[in-house]
């Protein structure tokens, strides 16, 4: 709010001089915001409102055929949250999300350190390959990985057989829940590491060399330099990236859905988004789907708060 070039700043700041021009009518900014607000209200606002309303209503077949819905309070929540299938899905989603976020972060930091430590030419090669992976459209990535993991002619099974694991010949990765989630993790980590690596690398370039040199002269080893100097100095980047990764890894509906196409056991591999899809689109239980959606939205807003606060600070600066 203390920004200098402020068109509508109160003329108090320059009491003697006349204001350079008439104060703009206060309606201008609202007019400029109108289209953006309107489209967000239609596309996001109304659906959220509908969801909140529906989650408190009976929404069965009768309502599908035009009967006015009846208010049932928290019945839908009680029904859905009393369902142990939901809790299985929630547990699975949280474990999957945290595991993916931490693996992604660990590998991403490793790649960023490699970029910092290697020759500029090697660094450029590494950056280009990261960008290529990052640029791949999600559906195309999952499709390529499905082929790499294909049980008949996939490269991964071939490679495992070459290194002596002959039992992997014809192994179907997507048939069991555990190896299904292993494949999903490989894909999601592969897709997410580039963002983490490039962001952390950008943070690393901000760490002054003098500080590291001084620590080295004082006798600190590489591990000590990393944990005592580097990590504290890039902590802001690390926490933001971890937070974004956790939020993004909660919304992996599409990847899971595409992998399930190959004949995976759906009930045992559903995550939160897939559960909502199945409830709503599959079983037409819109009230139940709305209740679970509210849970997902609330979780996202709660998790996003630290990130949003950081950005707001930037806005105020």
């Amino acid at each position, binding site marked *: 709010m203390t920004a200098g*070039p402020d*068109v509508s700043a109160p003329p108090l700041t320059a009491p003697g001089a006349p204001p350079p021009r008439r104060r703009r009518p206060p309606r*201008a*900014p609202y007019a400029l*915001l109108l289209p*953006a607000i309107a*489209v*967000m209200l*239609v*596309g*996001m606002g109304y*659906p959220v409102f509908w*969801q909140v309303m529906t989650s408190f209503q009976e929404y069965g077949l009768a309502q599908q055929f035009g009967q006015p819905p009846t208010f049932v309070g928290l019945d839908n929540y009680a029904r859905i949250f009393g369902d142990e299938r939901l809790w299985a899905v929630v547990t699975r989603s949280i474990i999957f999300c945290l595991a993916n976020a931490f693996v992604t972060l660990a590998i991403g930091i490793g790649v960023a350190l*490699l*970029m910092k*430590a290697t020759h500029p030419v090697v660094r450029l090669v590494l950056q280009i*390959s990261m*960008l290529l992976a990052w*640029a*791949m*459209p*999600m*559906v*195309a990535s999952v*499709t*390529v990985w*499905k*082929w*790499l993991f294909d049980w*008949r*002619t996939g490269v991964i099974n*071939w490679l495992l057989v070459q290194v002596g694991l002959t039992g992997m010949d014809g192994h179907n990765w997507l048939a069991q829940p555990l190896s299904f989630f292993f494949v999903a993790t490989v894909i999601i980590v592969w897709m997410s590491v*580039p*963002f983490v690596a*490039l*962001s952390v690398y*950008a*943070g690393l370039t*901000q760490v002054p060399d003098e500080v590291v040199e001084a620590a080295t002269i004082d006798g600190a080893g590489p591990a000590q330099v990393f944990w005592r100097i580097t990590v504290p100095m890039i902590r*802001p*980047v690390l926490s933001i*990236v971890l937070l*974004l990764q956790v*939020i993004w890894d909660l*919304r992996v*509906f599409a990847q899971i859905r595409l992998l399930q*196409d*190959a004949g995976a056991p759906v009930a045992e591999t559903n995550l939160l*988004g897939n559960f*909502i*899809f199945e409830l709503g*689109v599959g079983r037409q239980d819109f009230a139940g789907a709305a209740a679970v*959606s509210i849970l*997902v*939205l609330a979780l996202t*807003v709660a998790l996003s708060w630290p990130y*949003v606060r*950081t950005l*707001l600070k930037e*806005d105020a600066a």
Partner: protein
Amino acid sequence: MSAVEITTGRRVGADPDPSRPAPAAAGRWRRRLGRWLLGTVALVVAAIWAFPVYWMVISSLTPDALLRSETPSFWPASPSVRNFEAVIEGSSFPSALRMSLSITAVTVVAVLAFAFLAALAISRFRFRGRTSFVLAVLFIQMLPAEGLFIAQYKMLSAAGMLNSVIGVSVLYTAAIVPFTVWMLRGFVAGVPAELEEAAMVDGLSRAKAFWRITFPLLAPGLIASGVYAFLQAWNEFTVALVVLPAESTQTLPLWLRSFLAASANRGVDWGEVMAASTLIALPVIVFFLVVQSRMTSGLVSGAVKG
């Protein structure tokens, strides 16, 4: 920075070697070995990350019969574009391409117009409700499609707008506008209002000052935001899956999925499927390389600068 490195590097190299004691030479040798090792690890990591993209392109150029052989061949043995011909002629690719292009075009134009006006408002004016708007924008950009798509489906179906370009474009615009407002805000704030004022002192009207002075300076920001919106709309899968259920209105990501499913019915022809994937991925990779630096810094700039 690099100039300094070069000069210091030369100075170290010019040091007379014989005057150095033996342990220092051994240490230097070990350091060099370590650097080689790190370089090798880095190249292996680069190869792992690039391989799926490489493999997609190579396979798309290889006839299916060769892809089914026992040992995969890791370079194009007998490259041909027959897979691409089969995909373009033998499937609903043209109609999916038309669908994707229309939705993307409508979305990009709407996003740019709406987000630009909003960015102008929040970076050039201080007004009541500004902080609430910024807060709403930041939260809305985080909302997952998974938490909204059932309601969006019901909304469009009640309005009779399932399977319509406009319906899905409205949803895309609403989802993409928030981040674009945030991105453009930085660009608009980067053009000092004094420039515009100086032009007005020199006799231009406010509108002319804006179009002649400020707007050209914003072009890079608008291009970056436009490419960002393009990538989002072009790649989107989740919302499209729900609100475009008809086969005739599939976008490219939906089409790729059903192309693979159709191929799976007769033992997947991976050559054709990879050609299909390449067709979708290529324009995206090109556009992505244009915009990526801006996107990285947009997401974490506050954190990097501290």
